[in-house]
């Protein structure tokens, strides 16, 4: 059994207005994971193209903005690397605008930036993306609300139990204090959402680097357990 994840936000967090009519009101029913949940889609190399990890090379020209490397390691709750698992990211451009029809923020779109990437973790659970630093952007949650700069992450791990969608933030952002999505997470766990500047992975005269390590909860089926069922 895995202990409840004390780092997750509650489903209902009224300061985040959209949660009020969407968060379930009834108690969740405890489901001891069965083989259905202890397995999951593990994607092969064919799921990812050779340039999918490089968001700066998906168009004819280079996007505007501060070029950055974002890398890290995915581990499970016992500290073991999670190899060969799909990582998806998406983000606003350097001006704080998403390449999405619903985004009405009057900041420029960048014809050389879509803002979506994917890769598979290597045999040590490591991933590496090249992108540009996203801009902050306003939203209508409360008066003069702004989202801190962030990159969305989607991870599959090795089983349905490990599925995680989260957001990565940048160190020292002055917008943290007024952002209900960031602050919905218990205070002690908020630093887990912030990448750290990583001088060692910086590429001289080309790009700064940030490291974001990710820990997935949830059990998965070991070969022993699969044979045991």
């Amino acid at each position, binding site marked *: 059994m895995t202990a409840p994840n004390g*780092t997750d*936000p509650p489903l209902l967090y009224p300061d985040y207005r959209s949660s009020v009519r969407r968060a379930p009101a009834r108690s969740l029913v405890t489901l001891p994971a*069965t083989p259905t949940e202890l397995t999951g889609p593990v994607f092969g190399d064919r799921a990812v193209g050779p340039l999918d990890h490089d968001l700066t090379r998906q168009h004819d020209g280079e996007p505007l903005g501060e070029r950055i490397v974002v890398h890290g390691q995915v581990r499970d709750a016992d500290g073991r690397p999670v190899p060969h698992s799909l990582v*998806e990211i*998406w983000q606003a451009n350097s001006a704080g605008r998403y390449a999405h029809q619903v985004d009405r923020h009057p900041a420029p779109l960048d014809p050389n930036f879509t803002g979506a990437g994917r890769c598979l973790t290597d045999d040590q659970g490591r991933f590496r993306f090249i992108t540009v630093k996203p801009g902050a952007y306003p939203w209508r949650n409360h008066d003069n609300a702004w989202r801190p700069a962030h990159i969305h992450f989607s991870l599959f791990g090795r089983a349905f139990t490990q599925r995680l969608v*989260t957001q990565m933030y940048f160190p020292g952002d002055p917008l943290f204090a007024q952002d209900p*999505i960031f602050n919905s997470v218990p205070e002690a766990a908020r630093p887990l959402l912030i990448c750290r500047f990583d001088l060692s992975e910086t590429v001289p005269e080309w790009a700064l680097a940030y490291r974001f390590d990710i820990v997935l909860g949830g059990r998965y089926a070991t070969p022993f357990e699969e044979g045991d069922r």
Partner: protein
Amino acid sequence: MRTPSQTVGPFFGFALPWPDGPHVVPPGTPGGFWLRGRVLDGDGRPVPDALVETWQADPDGRLDNGFRDDGGFRGFGRCPTDEAGAFALHTVKPGRVADRAGRLQAPHLAVSVFSRGLLNRVVTRVYFADEPAANAEDPVLATVDPDRRDTLLARPDGDGYTFDIRLQGEHETVFFDLA
């Protein structure tokens, strides 16, 4: 410490869906059907910015830890909702899978729902209303309040089944906490 969850937000539509994501099985697969439904909020309004994902055994009850990319059964489906909150997945009915205690479960799909406003995914299951005998002995359904079990039943409808997901309010779908 585990990395906390955050909402998928409203702007994933250009990044996460892929064209044949809703096809757990390809068109023309024997036994294939459409599982259709809507995601609704606490006011009964459609949720137009949700992402529904499913994972299931194949018709023989096999659960390979993998995504078969050979043009056949995939196990995994992903579909964003449209402006009416509607999603549709093309799949087959899974076989029965035992739980860890060896008790046979009824045919079911594991479901994750992500959306703006959900700070974490919510997890539910699709069972099938036309499997009453199997459902009656399912060890997970047995833990659910009998008055709420019907929120987990997909109902035969035309060329498939209908399964609405009510995030909140009257007839709120049963959601699970994985342990």
